[in-house]
């Protein structure tokens, strides 16, 4: 199961009313190529995409928020799952794209999930996350992704994927923006969506 195939399925389900947060890694260029709109915050966080998404979900409880996290990112900060479980935002869905590798590292060394003795889904459930699942096929991913974000529970899905980054992105869908531009695009999108002012031109008390 390739990540790009899963993201294509997810892109069919995400609407312009939803918000998506990505972690660092191959998911960023792949998701951008499929969903270049401003409803995604391409965060550059190591191990903190899920807590960042929790902050978004708590602040905008009427929005579906989807975190695209990774096995390496999740393992970096497992305590965050306990905070998610404690806060239990019903509008947050965490998708852990688990390739069992530190793919951005030369040689793609294994993460702990490759041992087969640990289970991120069970860890999430034990942390208090009420809706969890593990999928190994594109069909099962599509089925769970269609229901989990709207089931009224905090969700975490582990998607076991093959290593590899999709390289055939059309030239007009290559992500060229940096983190600052990504921030402004997302912030302005939220301002329009929510009809609020996050950062007025002149900050006042």
């Amino acid at each position: 199961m390739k990540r790009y195939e899963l993201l294509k399925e997810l892109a069919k389900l995400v609407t312009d009313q939803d918000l998506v947060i990505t972690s660092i890694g191959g998911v960023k260029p792949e998701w951008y190529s499929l969903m270049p709109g401003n409803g995604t915050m391409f965060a550059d966080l190591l191990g903190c995409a899920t807590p960042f998404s929790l902050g978004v979900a708590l602040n905008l409880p009427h929005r579906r928020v989807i975190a695209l996290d990774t096995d390496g990112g999740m393992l970096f900060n497992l305590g965050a799952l306990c905070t998610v479980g404690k806060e239990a935002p019903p509008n947050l869905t965490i998708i852990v794209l688990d390739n069992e590798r530190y793919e951005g590292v030369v040689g793609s060394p294994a993460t702990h999930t490759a041992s087969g003795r640990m289970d991120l889904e069970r860890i999430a459930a034990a942390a208090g996350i009420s809706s969890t699942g593990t999928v190994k096929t594109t069909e099962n991913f599509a089925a769970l992704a269609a229901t989990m974000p709207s089931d009224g529970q905090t969700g975490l899905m582990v998607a076991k994927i093959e290593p590899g980054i999709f390289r055939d992105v059309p030239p007009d869908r290559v992500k060229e923006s940096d983190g600052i531009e990504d921030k402004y695009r997302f912030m302005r999108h939220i301002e329009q969506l929510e009809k609020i002012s996050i950062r007025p031109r002149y900050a006042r008390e």
Partner: protein
Amino acid sequence: MEPRLASLVLQGLKEAHVKFVVGLPDSMLAGVYAAAEKDPEIRYVGVTNEAEGASIAAGAWITGGRSVLVMENSGLRAACEALSRLGLVNGIPVTMLMGYRGDLGERFHWGVNHGITMEPILNALRIPYWIIDREDQIIPAVKRAVLHGISSLYHNAVIFRTPLVDEGK
């Protein structure tokens, strides 16, 4: 921090329209966590480490929910990775409120190192900060810190020194 002073912190936060207090409890600012948890106008989010806390605060902030991170100054070390990326890569601010553990006159041996590392880390990350020790500074410092986050789109910190904070038992 005694309840009367903690209430001033909360007043400053509310006057700055802060909605989220994200915190990892410590002794020096114990009164602030307790007051935030009880306050119906504030959403208090307790965390397991300060990097997670900075990220939650940033996620709320960038979507319009003004936020602060409250912690011991040792938490700055744990938060460095997230703060570096949030601030230097994305320009999403986190305003931090910290007690000055390890200040001159620190009574605990284990607290001295917190004071040694705090200001060098803040300076390394180019984070502006105010160290306050008077009651009349609390409300304006908190409000101005939140305001500065909005205008600078970068982190900042207010550090509470004795006699504003409790040194603990």
